[in-house]
């Protein structure tokens, strides 16, 4: 086969995936940006300008943004803090390891919405936790664990859902660190904690960073779990976007919120990569 024919073949192989992503992502992105500046409006006259941006720049949008970012950061780093020791523990071989491995993966097989609904039963105002605590006399009246202003219920569900995912990534990353590196560090005078601090920790940071970024972006743009267990105010960014478009017909402003979600996802991903690199530099 000629070189040219071969190239064509490669192009044809790659095209479905790349073409699909490029075409639809680009089209949607362009549409969104255009809508945010007044083009392709569903409900209003086409009026090019920054009116939607000005209208959307309210305290409410800021509340939604800071709420979503706070929930995302708490969920991502909370999952990391819980998953990391677990992944370290799973490096060793012990009798119950396969069982433990299986148990922590269960949440990966439960759809987020179903999980949220199930956990709601446990945590809601008249859920199992509150009922038990009240009956035992630990608390006088039920605690507001879901739909609370802080979003604790959402964080709880997000961590339940994302911890196994992070543990999976971290276990793989830690397993990929050659045993010889640990042996070399011990041989050179590093005690157990120094081995962790100077070898395992810095070498697992890129994996942790990837995991935290993925969880953060997922939670930042979450709709479903906030709809079920989130506070009445502020709505998450996604819910706000939906409300603006669907309930108020402000599709331009909804597009602005969509852009805020996408751009802040990118910015936070970038921030985490800098944070990761700085941490490696500090701990190595």
């Amino acid at each position, binding site marked *: 086969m000629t070189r040219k024919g071969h190239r064509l073949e490669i192009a044809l192989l790659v095209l479905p995936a790349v073409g699909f992503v490029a075409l639809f992502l680009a089209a949607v992105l362009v549409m969104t940006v255009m809508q945010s500046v007044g083009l392709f409006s569903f409900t209003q006259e086409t009026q090019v300008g920054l009116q939607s941006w000005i209208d959307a720049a309210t305290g409410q949008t800021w509340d939604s943004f800071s709420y979503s970012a706070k929930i995302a950061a708490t969920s991502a780093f909370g999952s990391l803090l819980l998953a990391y020791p677990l992944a370290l523990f799973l490096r060793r071989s012990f009798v119950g390891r396969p069982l433990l491995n299986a148990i922590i993966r269960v949440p990966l097989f439960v759809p987020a919405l179903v999980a949220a609904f199930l956990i709601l039963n446990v945590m809601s105002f008249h859920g199992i936790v509150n009922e038990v605590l009240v009956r035992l006399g630990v608390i006088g009246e039920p605690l507001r664990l879901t739909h609370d202003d802080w979003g604790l219920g959402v964080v709880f569900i997000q961590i339940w859902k994302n911890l196994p995912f992070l543990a999976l990534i971290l276990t793989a990353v830690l397993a990929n660190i*050659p045993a*010889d*590196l640990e*042996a*070399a*560090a*011990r*041989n*050179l*005078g*590093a*005690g157990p904690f*120094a081995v962790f601090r*100077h*070898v395992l920790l*810095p*070498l697992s940071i890129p994996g942790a960073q990837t995991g935290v970024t993925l969880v953060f972006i997922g939670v930042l743009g979450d709709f479903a779990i906030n709809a079920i267990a989130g506070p009445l105010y502020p709505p998450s960014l996604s819910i706000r976007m939906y409300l603006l478009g669907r309930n108020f017909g402000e599709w331009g402003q909804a597009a602005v919120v969509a852009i805020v979600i996408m751009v802040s996802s990118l910015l936070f991903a970038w921030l985490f990569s800098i944070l990761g690199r700085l941490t*490696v530099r500090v701990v*190595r």
Partner: protein
Amino acid sequence: MADLDLVELYKQYGGQTVVDHLTLHVSDGEFVTLLGPSGCGKTTTLRAIAGLVEIDGGEIRFGGRLMNDVPPHKRSTAMVFQSYALFPHMTVAENISFGLRMRHVSDRDRRDRVADAMAMVGLEGLAERKPGQLSGGQQQRVALARAIVTRPDVLLFDEPLSNLDAKLRERLRIEIRELQRRLGITSIYVTHDQAEALVISDRIVVMNQGRIEQIGDPLMVYKQPATSFTAEFIGQANVLEATISSVSSDGCQLDTAIGRLVSSARPDPERRTALVSWRPEDMIPFTPDLPNRIEARVTRTIFMGNLTDVALDVNGTAIRVERPGSVDWQVGDTVALGLAADRIQVLR
């Protein structure tokens, strides 16, 4: 600096004995090689000395001090790994200074000692590189510098050259040996490469199935193998079964499948049978002053540049001869070969 003692060292994995009551004394500053095939227990022994493998029995002593319960990071050993085991997230200088940092050596001392070590192994100018940016040979040198910079009691080498190409391997062998002589650090070197062991060692410990087959300096291990394992593992050997027909003060007479052989070895007169061996290069064209005359038919010749490897047949028994340069023997020729009495070893 210290001498090293292993006493009845014992280790098993899942019921299988890997190191079988191994006893070895290594003097201060000596370079000892553990030589054997994979699975003979040499690497396990090395890792046990470093404390990276827990032993199931026996004693490990550095300078008389019992090390059994001392954790690896408190034993003064430094290991050069087969995989080099360089920290990929640290620069060359950071890798080398790691051991000093763990020992809380001051910044200034650390800088000086790292620079010294780098100069010693020829790594000048590479301090700020990451291991991933270095060639295999350079990585090996970093591993070496990282080991010697801590001035350990015992240097441990785990097949450090086996991932390098032949030319570099030969050069680094000699460099390691010279460096060790200069520093005078007691060293244990693990390899399965007999040529490497012969070049680098003060003494060679030939290991097989967790046990020591023979200990001796390179010349002795090569010239006077004690067992058929040693004879065949180090270099090439012709090994035959023999019946000992007589033993005198001059030597013995041996009946073998290729006829009666005269050897200057003096085995225990009580022994009836033995394995005998000699090196292929010790068989030369027959001259009347040689006590052993062997007529053999050439079955194959392989020219290897500096020598020719010749396979021969004597009444159905295969033997090998190595002749320097090329030979004009043809397959099917019958040749008369001679063998000096002192070249025939009676094995244990």
